Protein backbone atom coordinates (compact mmCIF):
# COMPACT_ATOMS: atom_id res chain seq x y z
CA UNK A 1 0.00 0.00 0.00
CA UNK A 2 1.03 3.57 -0.55
CA UNK A 3 -0.60 6.61 0.96
CA UNK A 4 -1.29 9.40 -1.54
CA UNK A 5 0.98 12.40 -1.20
CA UNK A 6 0.13 15.23 -3.58
CA UNK A 7 -1.73 17.85 -1.61
CA UNK A 8 -3.15 19.60 -4.67
CA UNK A 9 -4.38 16.53 -6.54
CA UNK A 10 -7.94 15.30 -6.35
CA UNK A 11 -9.30 12.11 -7.81
CA UNK A 12 -12.66 12.43 -9.58
CA UNK A 13 -15.51 9.92 -9.38
CA UNK A 14 -18.70 10.16 -11.39
CA UNK A 15 -21.81 8.32 -12.29
CA UNK A 16 -23.12 8.84 -15.79
CA UNK A 17 -26.68 7.97 -16.69
CA UNK A 18 -28.91 5.62 -14.76
CA UNK A 19 -28.99 5.32 -10.98
CA UNK A 20 -28.11 1.64 -11.28
CA UNK A 21 -24.75 2.48 -12.90
CA UNK A 22 -21.71 2.27 -10.63
CA UNK A 23 -19.92 5.39 -9.55
CA UNK A 24 -16.58 5.14 -11.34
CA UNK A 25 -13.19 6.78 -11.10
CA UNK A 26 -12.78 9.03 -14.15
CA UNK A 27 -9.58 11.00 -13.66
CA UNK A 28 -7.99 13.70 -11.55
CA UNK A 29 -7.80 17.46 -11.25
CA UNK A 30 -5.40 19.87 -9.62
CA UNK A 31 -6.70 22.46 -7.15
CA UNK A 32 -5.83 23.94 -3.78
CA UNK A 33 -9.02 23.08 -1.99
CA UNK A 34 -11.95 20.66 -2.40
CA UNK A 35 -14.66 23.05 -3.60
CA UNK A 36 -12.47 24.39 -6.39
CA UNK A 37 -11.49 20.83 -7.23
CA UNK A 38 -15.16 19.86 -7.50
CA UNK A 39 -15.84 22.77 -9.85
CA UNK A 40 -12.81 21.91 -11.97
CA UNK A 41 -14.06 18.31 -12.15
CA UNK A 42 -17.50 19.53 -13.15
CA UNK A 43 -16.06 21.66 -15.97
CA UNK A 44 -13.85 18.88 -17.28
CA UNK A 45 -15.79 15.65 -16.69
CA UNK A 46 -19.42 16.61 -17.26
CA UNK A 47 -19.15 18.36 -20.62
CA UNK A 48 -21.24 15.93 -22.71
CA UNK A 49 -22.37 13.09 -20.50
CA UNK A 50 -25.53 13.00 -18.39
CA UNK A 51 -23.69 13.08 -15.08
CA UNK A 52 -25.81 12.16 -12.06
CA UNK A 53 -23.17 11.93 -9.33
CA UNK A 54 -19.84 13.77 -9.03
CA UNK A 55 -17.41 13.23 -6.16
CA UNK A 56 -13.84 14.29 -5.57
CA UNK A 57 -11.35 12.92 -3.05
CA UNK A 58 -8.04 14.40 -2.02
CA UNK A 59 -5.26 12.16 -3.19
CA UNK A 60 -3.35 12.63 0.06
CA UNK A 61 -6.35 11.24 1.93
CA UNK A 62 -6.43 8.05 -0.09
CA UNK A 63 -4.50 4.81 0.11
CA UNK A 64 -3.42 3.10 -3.10
CA UNK A 65 -2.48 -0.51 -3.75
CA UNK A 66 0.94 -1.18 -5.23
CA UNK A 67 2.33 -4.07 -7.26
CA UNK A 68 3.38 -5.73 -3.99
CA UNK A 69 -0.28 -6.05 -3.00
CA UNK A 70 -1.26 -7.93 -6.12
CA UNK A 71 -1.08 -11.42 -4.66
CA UNK A 72 -3.08 -10.51 -1.58
CA UNK A 73 -5.75 -8.84 -3.73
CA UNK A 74 -6.47 -11.84 -5.95
CA UNK A 75 -8.85 -14.00 -3.96
CA UNK A 76 -9.70 -16.64 -6.56
CA UNK A 77 -6.75 -19.00 -6.14
CA UNK A 78 -5.92 -18.12 -2.55
CA UNK A 79 -9.43 -18.30 -1.14
CA UNK A 80 -11.07 -20.99 -3.24
CA UNK A 81 -13.29 -22.04 -0.30
CA UNK A 82 -15.23 -18.80 -0.96
CA UNK A 83 -16.15 -19.69 -4.53
CA UNK A 84 -19.64 -21.03 -5.40
CA UNK A 85 -18.23 -24.31 -6.77
CA UNK A 86 -16.37 -25.13 -3.57
CA UNK A 87 -19.20 -26.67 -1.52
CA UNK A 88 -20.07 -29.04 -4.39
CA UNK A 89 -16.46 -30.12 -4.84
CA UNK A 90 -16.20 -30.55 -1.12
CA UNK A 91 -19.25 -32.84 -1.13
CA UNK A 92 -18.05 -34.93 -4.05
CA UNK A 93 -14.62 -35.33 -2.48
CA UNK A 94 -16.28 -36.46 0.73
CA UNK A 95 -18.48 -38.95 -1.13
CA UNK A 96 -15.53 -40.30 -3.09
CA UNK A 97 -13.51 -40.66 0.07
CA UNK A 98 -16.40 -42.56 1.68
CA UNK A 99 -16.69 -44.82 -1.38
CA UNK A 100 -12.96 -45.44 -1.36
CA UNK A 101 -13.20 -46.52 2.26
CA UNK A 102 -16.02 -48.95 1.40
CA UNK A 103 -14.27 -50.57 -1.59
CA UNK A 104 -10.85 -50.23 -0.20
CA UNK A 105 -9.78 -48.04 -3.19
CA UNK A 106 -8.19 -44.69 -2.36
CA UNK A 107 -9.64 -41.63 -4.14
CA UNK A 108 -7.54 -40.73 -7.14
CA UNK A 109 -8.96 -37.26 -7.87
CA UNK A 110 -7.36 -34.26 -6.31
CA UNK A 111 -9.44 -32.00 -4.13
CA UNK A 112 -9.04 -29.05 -6.45
CA UNK A 113 -10.22 -30.78 -9.64
CA UNK A 114 -12.82 -28.75 -11.51
CA UNK A 115 -16.35 -30.04 -11.22
Amino acid sequence: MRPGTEEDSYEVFARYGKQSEPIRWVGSVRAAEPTLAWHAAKEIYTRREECTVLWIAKRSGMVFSTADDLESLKSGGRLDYRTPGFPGRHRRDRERAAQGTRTGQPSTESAGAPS
Partner: protein
Amino acid sequence: MADRALPRDEPDPRLARKFELWDDLPDGYREEAARVSSFQALAEIVGVLPFAEWIDRVPDYARKQMLIAKVQDEVGHGQVTARVAEDLGVSRDRIILDFVEGRTKLLNVFHFGFDTWEEVGPAALLMNSAAIVQFQALDQGTYLPYARALRKIEKEESFHYHHALDHTHQTMTLGTPAQRALVQQAFETWLPRILAYFGPPDTDTYQGNRMYQFGIKVSSNDAMRQEWLAKIIPVFRKLGVHVDPALTHVDEETGKWWFASPDWVAVKKMLREGGPRHEEWRAKIADSLERNALYRDVALMRSAA
Protein backbone atom coordinates in the same frame (compact mmCIF):
# COMPACT_ATOMS: atom_id res chain seq x y z
CA MET B 1 -2.60 -1.36 -46.10
CA ALA B 2 1.06 -2.00 -46.71
CA ASP B 3 2.17 0.91 -44.52
CA ARG B 4 0.65 -0.54 -41.42
CA ALA B 5 2.66 -3.32 -39.85
CA LEU B 6 -0.47 -5.27 -39.01
CA PRO B 7 -4.15 -4.82 -39.77
CA ARG B 8 -6.07 -3.11 -36.98
CA ASP B 9 -7.92 -6.20 -35.76
CA GLU B 10 -4.82 -8.36 -35.45
CA PRO B 11 -3.11 -8.03 -32.09
CA ASP B 12 0.18 -6.19 -32.38
CA PRO B 13 2.76 -7.73 -29.99
CA ARG B 14 4.15 -4.23 -29.35
CA LEU B 15 0.83 -3.21 -27.84
CA ALA B 16 0.14 -6.36 -25.83
CA ARG B 17 1.64 -5.21 -22.57
CA LYS B 18 -0.02 -2.12 -21.10
CA PHE B 19 1.27 0.07 -18.29
CA GLU B 20 -0.19 2.05 -15.41
CA LEU B 21 1.62 4.88 -13.67
CA TRP B 22 2.50 2.65 -10.73
CA ASP B 23 3.86 -0.27 -12.76
CA ASP B 24 7.56 -0.83 -13.21
CA LEU B 25 8.17 1.00 -16.47
CA PRO B 26 10.91 0.04 -18.93
CA ASP B 27 13.94 2.35 -19.00
CA GLY B 28 13.10 5.56 -20.82
CA TYR B 29 9.38 4.79 -20.98
CA ARG B 30 8.40 7.37 -18.39
CA GLU B 31 10.23 10.13 -20.30
CA GLU B 32 8.54 9.23 -23.58
CA ALA B 33 5.08 9.06 -21.97
CA ALA B 34 5.71 12.43 -20.31
CA ARG B 35 6.91 13.87 -23.61
CA VAL B 36 3.84 12.84 -25.60
CA SER B 37 1.34 13.94 -22.93
CA SER B 38 2.97 17.29 -22.20
CA PHE B 39 3.36 17.98 -25.92
CA GLN B 40 -0.34 17.37 -26.42
CA ALA B 41 -1.28 19.46 -23.37
CA LEU B 42 0.56 22.42 -24.90
CA ALA B 43 -1.03 21.83 -28.31
CA GLU B 44 -4.50 21.80 -26.76
CA ILE B 45 -3.90 25.03 -24.89
CA VAL B 46 -2.18 27.02 -27.64
CA GLY B 47 -4.44 25.40 -30.23
CA VAL B 48 -7.46 27.29 -28.92
CA LEU B 49 -5.96 30.71 -29.58
CA PRO B 50 -6.69 30.83 -33.34
CA PHE B 51 -10.31 29.90 -32.54
CA ALA B 52 -10.74 32.00 -29.41
CA GLU B 53 -10.04 35.23 -31.28
CA TRP B 54 -13.11 34.50 -33.44
CA ILE B 55 -15.52 34.26 -30.50
CA ASP B 56 -16.43 37.95 -30.59
CA ARG B 57 -16.61 38.05 -34.39
CA VAL B 58 -18.87 35.07 -35.06
CA PRO B 59 -21.77 36.23 -37.27
CA ASP B 60 -24.29 33.81 -35.75
CA TYR B 61 -25.36 33.25 -32.15
CA ALA B 62 -25.63 29.42 -32.19
CA ARG B 63 -22.22 29.20 -33.84
CA LYS B 64 -20.80 31.51 -31.20
CA GLN B 65 -22.13 29.12 -28.53
CA MET B 66 -20.64 26.12 -30.33
CA LEU B 67 -17.31 27.88 -30.78
CA ILE B 68 -17.17 28.78 -27.07
CA ALA B 69 -17.97 25.13 -26.23
CA LYS B 70 -15.15 24.00 -28.50
CA VAL B 71 -12.65 26.38 -26.93
CA GLN B 72 -13.68 25.28 -23.43
CA ASP B 73 -13.45 21.62 -24.50
CA GLU B 74 -9.93 22.09 -25.81
CA VAL B 75 -8.77 23.79 -22.63
CA GLY B 76 -10.29 20.84 -20.74
CA HIS B 77 -8.27 18.50 -22.99
CA GLY B 78 -5.22 20.52 -22.02
CA GLN B 79 -6.02 19.92 -18.34
CA VAL B 80 -6.63 16.19 -18.81
CA THR B 81 -3.41 15.61 -20.75
CA ALA B 82 -1.48 17.92 -18.39
CA ARG B 83 -2.65 15.71 -15.49
CA VAL B 84 -1.14 12.70 -17.26
CA ALA B 85 2.14 14.62 -17.63
CA GLU B 86 2.01 15.94 -14.05
CA ASP B 87 1.67 12.43 -12.65
CA LEU B 88 4.82 11.61 -14.61
CA GLY B 89 6.63 14.54 -13.02
CA VAL B 90 6.21 17.33 -15.57
CA SER B 91 4.14 20.14 -14.07
CA ARG B 92 1.80 22.26 -16.16
CA ASP B 93 3.77 25.34 -15.14
CA ARG B 94 6.77 23.71 -16.70
CA ILE B 95 4.89 22.84 -19.89
CA ILE B 96 3.76 26.43 -20.32
CA LEU B 97 7.08 27.99 -19.32
CA ASP B 98 9.02 25.77 -21.71
CA PHE B 99 6.85 27.14 -24.52
CA VAL B 100 6.91 30.76 -23.41
CA GLU B 101 10.68 30.68 -23.01
CA GLY B 102 11.17 29.03 -26.38
CA ARG B 103 12.32 25.56 -25.31
CA THR B 104 9.45 23.67 -26.94
CA LYS B 105 8.11 23.86 -30.46
CA LEU B 106 4.53 24.04 -31.61
CA LEU B 107 2.90 21.75 -34.14
CA ASN B 108 2.99 23.36 -37.58
CA VAL B 109 -0.79 23.94 -37.74
CA PHE B 110 -0.73 26.18 -34.68
CA HIS B 111 1.65 28.70 -36.25
CA PHE B 112 -1.24 30.17 -38.23
CA GLY B 113 -4.52 31.95 -37.70
CA PHE B 114 -7.69 32.30 -39.76
CA ASP B 115 -8.15 35.30 -42.03
CA THR B 116 -11.88 34.91 -42.62
CA TRP B 117 -14.87 33.26 -40.95
CA GLU B 118 -15.36 31.17 -44.08
CA GLU B 119 -11.86 29.75 -43.59
CA VAL B 120 -12.59 28.56 -40.03
CA GLY B 121 -15.03 25.79 -41.08
CA PRO B 122 -12.92 23.88 -43.64
CA ALA B 123 -9.68 24.44 -41.71
CA ALA B 124 -11.24 23.08 -38.52
CA LEU B 125 -12.76 20.19 -40.46
CA LEU B 126 -9.33 19.21 -41.80
CA MET B 127 -7.69 19.65 -38.39
CA ASN B 128 -10.34 17.80 -36.40
CA SER B 129 -10.50 14.84 -38.76
CA ALA B 130 -6.70 14.58 -38.62
CA ALA B 131 -6.74 14.75 -34.82
CA ILE B 132 -9.41 12.05 -34.68
CA VAL B 133 -7.38 9.70 -36.91
CA GLN B 134 -4.31 10.37 -34.78
CA PHE B 135 -6.08 9.94 -31.41
CA GLN B 136 -7.83 6.75 -32.50
CA ALA B 137 -4.42 5.27 -33.24
CA LEU B 138 -2.81 6.62 -30.07
CA ASP B 139 -5.61 5.40 -27.79
CA GLN B 140 -4.54 1.82 -28.62
CA GLY B 141 -1.16 2.63 -27.06
CA THR B 142 0.46 1.02 -24.06
CA TYR B 143 0.32 3.86 -21.52
CA LEU B 144 -3.15 3.50 -20.04
CA PRO B 145 -3.57 6.90 -18.33
CA TYR B 146 -2.85 8.59 -21.67
CA ALA B 147 -5.10 6.18 -23.57
CA ARG B 148 -7.96 6.94 -21.14
CA ALA B 149 -7.42 10.68 -21.53
CA LEU B 150 -7.62 10.31 -25.31
CA ARG B 151 -10.85 8.34 -25.19
CA LYS B 152 -12.44 11.10 -23.16
CA ILE B 153 -11.12 13.68 -25.62
CA GLU B 154 -12.36 11.82 -28.71
CA LYS B 155 -16.01 12.21 -27.76
CA GLU B 156 -15.65 15.96 -27.75
CA GLU B 157 -13.54 16.02 -30.90
CA SER B 158 -16.40 14.30 -32.65
CA PHE B 159 -18.64 17.24 -31.74
CA HIS B 160 -16.03 19.68 -33.10
CA TYR B 161 -15.88 17.68 -36.31
CA HIS B 162 -19.64 17.85 -36.80
CA HIS B 163 -19.67 21.55 -36.01
CA ALA B 164 -16.96 22.23 -38.59
CA LEU B 165 -18.77 20.05 -41.13
CA ASP B 166 -22.03 21.90 -40.60
CA HIS B 167 -20.32 25.30 -40.75
CA THR B 168 -18.65 24.40 -44.06
CA HIS B 169 -21.91 22.95 -45.39
CA GLN B 170 -23.73 26.18 -44.55
CA THR B 171 -21.21 28.28 -46.44
CA MET B 172 -21.24 25.92 -49.44
CA THR B 173 -25.03 25.75 -49.70
CA LEU B 174 -26.13 29.23 -48.63
CA GLY B 175 -23.03 31.31 -49.21
CA THR B 176 -22.25 33.66 -52.07
CA PRO B 177 -19.82 32.58 -54.82
CA ALA B 178 -17.17 34.69 -53.10
CA GLN B 179 -17.76 32.86 -49.82
CA ARG B 180 -17.62 29.46 -51.52
CA ALA B 181 -14.36 30.51 -53.14
CA LEU B 182 -12.97 31.20 -49.66
CA VAL B 183 -13.83 27.63 -48.61
CA GLN B 184 -12.12 26.30 -51.73
CA GLN B 185 -9.07 28.41 -51.01
CA ALA B 186 -9.01 27.35 -47.35
CA PHE B 187 -9.10 23.69 -48.39
CA GLU B 188 -6.13 24.19 -50.68
CA THR B 189 -4.18 26.16 -48.07
CA TRP B 190 -4.80 23.78 -45.17
CA LEU B 191 -4.53 20.42 -46.94
CA PRO B 192 -0.71 20.54 -47.24
CA ARG B 193 -0.45 21.89 -43.68
CA ILE B 194 -2.35 18.91 -42.29
CA LEU B 195 -0.34 16.50 -44.46
CA ALA B 196 2.73 17.96 -42.79
CA TYR B 197 1.06 17.84 -39.36
CA PHE B 198 1.29 14.01 -39.40
CA GLY B 199 5.07 14.35 -39.44
CA PRO B 200 7.86 13.48 -41.84
CA PRO B 201 7.54 10.46 -44.19
CA ASP B 202 8.35 7.11 -42.62
CA THR B 203 12.01 6.26 -42.80
CA ASP B 204 13.24 2.70 -43.18
CA THR B 205 14.09 2.72 -39.50
CA TYR B 206 10.91 4.15 -37.99
CA GLN B 207 10.12 0.83 -36.33
CA GLY B 208 13.32 1.19 -34.33
CA ASN B 209 12.09 4.48 -32.88
CA ARG B 210 11.85 4.23 -29.09
CA MET B 211 8.38 5.77 -28.90
CA TYR B 212 7.19 3.28 -31.51
CA GLN B 213 8.82 0.29 -29.81
CA PHE B 214 7.27 1.20 -26.48
CA GLY B 215 3.89 1.26 -28.22
CA ILE B 216 3.27 4.87 -27.19
CA LYS B 217 3.34 5.80 -30.86
CA VAL B 218 1.04 3.29 -32.49
CA SER B 219 0.71 3.93 -36.25
CA SER B 220 3.33 5.23 -38.62
CA ASN B 221 3.01 8.77 -40.02
CA ASP B 222 2.39 7.50 -43.55
CA ALA B 223 -0.25 5.01 -42.40
CA MET B 224 -2.13 7.80 -40.62
CA ARG B 225 -1.86 10.13 -43.62
CA GLN B 226 -3.38 7.44 -45.85
CA GLU B 227 -6.17 6.74 -43.41
CA TRP B 228 -6.95 10.42 -43.08
CA LEU B 229 -7.03 11.14 -46.83
CA ALA B 230 -9.32 8.16 -47.42
CA LYS B 231 -11.67 9.52 -44.79
CA ILE B 232 -11.71 13.26 -45.41
CA ILE B 233 -11.32 13.76 -49.18
CA PRO B 234 -14.75 12.19 -49.96
CA VAL B 235 -16.26 14.47 -47.29
CA PHE B 236 -14.94 17.59 -49.02
CA ARG B 237 -16.04 16.33 -52.43
CA LYS B 238 -19.52 15.80 -51.07
CA LEU B 239 -19.50 19.35 -49.72
CA GLY B 240 -18.88 20.57 -53.25
CA VAL B 241 -15.20 21.39 -52.87
CA HIS B 242 -13.09 20.65 -55.94
CA VAL B 243 -10.18 18.34 -55.11
CA ASP B 244 -7.49 19.08 -57.66
CA PRO B 245 -5.75 15.80 -58.63
CA ALA B 246 -2.51 17.78 -58.53
CA LEU B 247 -3.06 18.04 -54.75
CA THR B 248 -4.12 14.47 -54.10
CA HIS B 249 -5.74 11.50 -55.84
CA VAL B 250 -5.93 7.74 -55.59
CA ASP B 251 -3.11 6.08 -57.49
CA GLU B 252 -4.77 3.58 -59.85
CA GLU B 253 -1.88 1.17 -59.65
CA THR B 254 -1.23 1.01 -55.93
CA GLY B 255 -4.73 1.93 -54.73
CA LYS B 256 -3.08 4.32 -52.29
CA TRP B 257 -3.47 8.06 -52.02
CA TRP B 258 -0.89 10.06 -53.85
CA PHE B 259 -0.41 13.61 -52.58
CA ALA B 260 1.79 16.55 -53.42
CA SER B 261 4.50 16.31 -50.81
CA PRO B 262 4.60 19.17 -48.31
CA ASP B 263 7.66 21.38 -48.66
CA TRP B 264 9.54 19.83 -45.76
CA VAL B 265 12.37 22.32 -45.90
CA ALA B 266 9.90 25.18 -45.51
CA VAL B 267 8.00 23.33 -42.77
CA LYS B 268 11.18 22.74 -40.76
CA LYS B 269 12.26 26.32 -41.25
CA MET B 270 8.91 27.55 -39.96
CA LEU B 271 9.01 25.23 -36.94
CA ARG B 272 12.47 26.59 -36.17
CA GLU B 273 11.81 30.26 -36.78
CA GLY B 274 8.10 30.49 -36.02
CA GLY B 275 5.19 30.88 -38.43
CA PRO B 276 3.04 33.98 -39.04
CA ARG B 277 1.22 33.98 -35.70
CA HIS B 278 3.66 32.05 -33.51
CA GLU B 279 5.10 35.04 -31.70
CA GLU B 280 1.63 36.45 -31.11
CA TRP B 281 0.40 33.23 -29.51
CA ARG B 282 3.57 32.97 -27.43
CA ALA B 283 3.20 36.54 -26.21
CA LYS B 284 -0.45 35.96 -25.41
CA ILE B 285 0.32 32.93 -23.24
CA ALA B 286 3.22 34.77 -21.59
CA ASP B 287 0.96 37.73 -20.86
CA SER B 288 -1.81 35.61 -19.41
CA LEU B 289 0.71 33.72 -17.29
CA GLU B 290 1.91 37.00 -15.84
CA ARG B 291 -1.52 38.59 -15.40
CA ASN B 292 -2.91 35.51 -13.68
CA ALA B 293 0.08 34.78 -11.45
CA LEU B 294 -1.59 36.19 -8.34
CA TYR B 295 -4.83 34.28 -8.91
CA ARG B 296 -2.94 31.10 -9.65
CA ASP B 297 -0.98 31.41 -6.44
CA VAL B 298 -4.17 32.01 -4.49
CA ALA B 299 -5.97 29.16 -6.23
CA LEU B 300 -3.13 26.79 -5.46
CA MET B 301 -2.48 28.41 -2.04
CA ARG B 302 1.14 28.93 -2.86
CA SER B 303 3.53 31.17 -0.93
CA ALA B 304 2.73 34.41 -2.79
CA ALA B 305 -0.86 34.27 -1.50
